[in-house]
């Protein structure tokens, strides 16, 4: 469980999150949706403890960060670190040694090559593999489906469903609605740092239609495409 109370975050005078209160339960997958700049990544960084904030974030496993797998939107890799070393580094940091990484390389990554030579999708898959092998109880996936191929997309969806089955807490942000539809139990909508609403799975279709109507409006007509 992760319980967030009255979470606020500002950068100088710019308020990025405004009194957000949420409760994320075990065995549930939550989608976080919002336009660019809505505060999704900042919310994730606050939960991870990478940002100072006002309010409270409480988890049943303390400290939360030591049980949290964080997939950043653009994972950073050192220039001469190989894939296998990156995974080892993240596991060693959690006191885990002697893991059979080669066997658990389910995305078939070239683990002995430098991670900096990987494509965008491969980098993302490497970062996902690393946080999965850390044995976390909580997961934050910030844009996990961006850049990865369709096969890996299917695999990742199944992984997320498995994490749910294993009673983990999973938070996902994605701009691809279908991926959230396949994996999430609830979707939180953020707008300019405020929580607008929580949408249950049964209402996902309505939400998609609503978002389409608001987002598209008459914008396509403005292009006067011929």
């Amino acid at each position: 469980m992760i319980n967030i109370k009255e979470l606020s975050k500002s950068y100088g005078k710019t308020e990025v999150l405004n009194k957000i209160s949420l409760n994320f339960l075990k065995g549930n997958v939550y989608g976080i949706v919002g336009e660019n700049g809505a505060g999704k990544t900042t919310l994730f960084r606050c939960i991870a403890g990478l940002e100072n904030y006002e309010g409270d974030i409480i988890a049943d496993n303390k400290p939360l960060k030591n049980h949290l797998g964080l997939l950043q939107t653009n994972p950073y890799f050192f220039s001469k670190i190989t894939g296998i070393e990156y995974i080892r580094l993240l596991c060693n940091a959690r006191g885990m040694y002697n893991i059979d990484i080669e066997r658990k390389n389910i995305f078939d990554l070239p683990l002995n090559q430098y991670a900096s030579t990987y494509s965008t999708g491969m980098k993302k898959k490497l970062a996902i593999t690393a946080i999965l092998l850390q044995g976390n109880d909580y997961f934050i996936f910030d844009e996990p489906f961006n850049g990865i191929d369709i096969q890996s997309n299917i695999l990742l969806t199944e992984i997320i469903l498995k994490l749910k089955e294993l009673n983990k807490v999973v938070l996902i942000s994605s701009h691809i609605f279908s991926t959230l539809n396949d994996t999430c139990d609830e979707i939180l909508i953020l707008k300019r740092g405020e929580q607008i609403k929580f949408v249950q799975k049964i209402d996902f279709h309505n939400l998609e239609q609503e978002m389409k109507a608001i987002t598209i409006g008459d914008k396509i007509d403005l292009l006067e495409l011929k």
Partner: protein
Amino acid sequence: MIDFFKLQFILLNRKIKDAGLNPLLGYLLGLIAFFLISEFMFNKTNFAKYLVILTGLSIQFKFSEKDRMDFLISTFGNIKKIKIRLIENFIIAIPFIFILLLKSSPFEALVLFFCSIISALFSFYSDFNLTIPTPFSKRPFEFSTGFRKSFLIFPFTYALTVFSINIDNLNLGIFALLLVFITILSFYNVPENEFYVWIYADTPRDFLMKKVLNAIKNASLLVAPIIISLLIFYTKQFKLILISFFIGQTYLSTIILAKYSAYPRNISISEGLLIALSLYFPPLLIAFIPMFYSKSIGNVKYLLND
């Protein structure tokens, strides 16, 4: 093209300012440090002229990285890219050529001059993605990545040690030992992304202890061939050899603590000045090490949520 160099100048000035220095003072101090270090090297070894060439070329190589070359070609075209690289290499080579001429090594100055032209014409990193094996792969990341970035220096220092024994010059052997330590210190000169501190499930104290102990262990492995060879062939001078080893390890620990005492920013002039002071009077480390340690604890605490 002129705008490109103006922009490079602005960026360089910005870096000096970030280090806490007035740019003009930065250039002056840099030149003084360059000449003092060169003087020290030429007094210590006959190989200084080769080290000057190597250092000059290694800086030039850094400017010919693939991404940078791609940027220059796509922005300016191939002809202007070559012109830019030639000008950059000449600017970099000037102080090195000057010191070689000053030390009566015109042939070596000429070699550096021609190598500068050649290195401006090619990119040395284009297809060099071969994974260099490292003994530090099991405990990444500083030594595994640092070793790969500077791997040529290690066979060079080991060869230098053998040579020092052949010509019966212990000082040269000690120089090789210190060169390895200086190379290792460079593994710690850039602060890592905050994510790579945040991932540790350690207290700040344990985090720093692990960093220092890992560095001491790995550094011992890299200098072992030099230390063992020197101890075998210069048994009577074992104290000097062991003291040099101890000094290297002490400064390695100091640099790691200094790095985190400045974290997440780079080591600035204030930390650099303290380290420079301690080089002149090493007992100062008794005060500086606990100070760096205490500041480091404070700096990594927020990321480790302790």
